[in-house]
């Protein structure tokens, strides 16, 4: 289970809506205790995918380096990542499966017509052959 803080959630929704009609991407930072992951900080990243970004993203590794540094300074860790699906549902695609790592919580946000619609979270198995939905809790306004 992963719980997103209000501050982190606001940033994620804002980043997803502003990036529309392109996909956005970012990093989730926080801690984990007794199986509960709490993302207290979200970092908006540059989409470094070279080509059409309406349906693809690549997190800029330089943003990962600075997020890693920031999380260590805060005594926290990188819990996972988020990205958006413009005008598509919040599901984990085959492209997502092949390009994510195990362990991480990966939040997918559906944005329809530029407005946030839904979100789900997924974890990938070690062979990157299957994903499993993880309970996701975000502040409902």
């Amino acid at each position, binding site marked *: 289970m992963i719980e997103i803080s209000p501050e982190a959630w606001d940033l994620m929704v804002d980043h997803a809506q502003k990036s529309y009609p392109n996909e956005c991407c970012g990093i989730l930072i926080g801690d984990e205790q007794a199986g509960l992951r709490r993302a207290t900080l979200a970092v908006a990243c540059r989409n470094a995918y070279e080509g059409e970004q309406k*349906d693809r993203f690549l997190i800029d590794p330089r943003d990962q*380096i600075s997020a890693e540094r920031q999380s260590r300074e805060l005594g926290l*860790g990188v819990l996972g990542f988020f*990205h958006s699906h413009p005008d598509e549902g919040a599901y984990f695609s085959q*492209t*997502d499966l092949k*390009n994510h790592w195990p362990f*991480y919580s990966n939040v997918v946000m559906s944005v329809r017509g530029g407005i946030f619609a839904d979100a789900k979270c997924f974890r990938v198995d070690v062979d990157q052959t299957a994903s499993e939905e993880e309970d996701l809790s975000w502040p409902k306004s």
Partner: protein
Amino acid sequence: MAKILIPTPLRQFTGGADTVTASGATVGELMGALLAAHPDLKKNLYNDEGKLRSFVNIYVNDEDIRYLSKEESAVADSDTVSIIPSIAGGR
């Protein structure tokens, strides 16, 4: 001894350590020392041909080794080497 930053998914193979120090004049030597100390990391970082996996990025400070001299890239004791999982996708 240069510092190697270990991403969270790989810490289970370094006894939980988030940072490992190792000696080496190049990235290749440093990674060799890292794998000698933590052999279980190997299958996660290298393919069967002994090549670095494509979804693993290695940075010396803020530079991608692909744009330096790959595994021949020089490393000084004051350098920080980061293992960065490549994260991408789409729909």
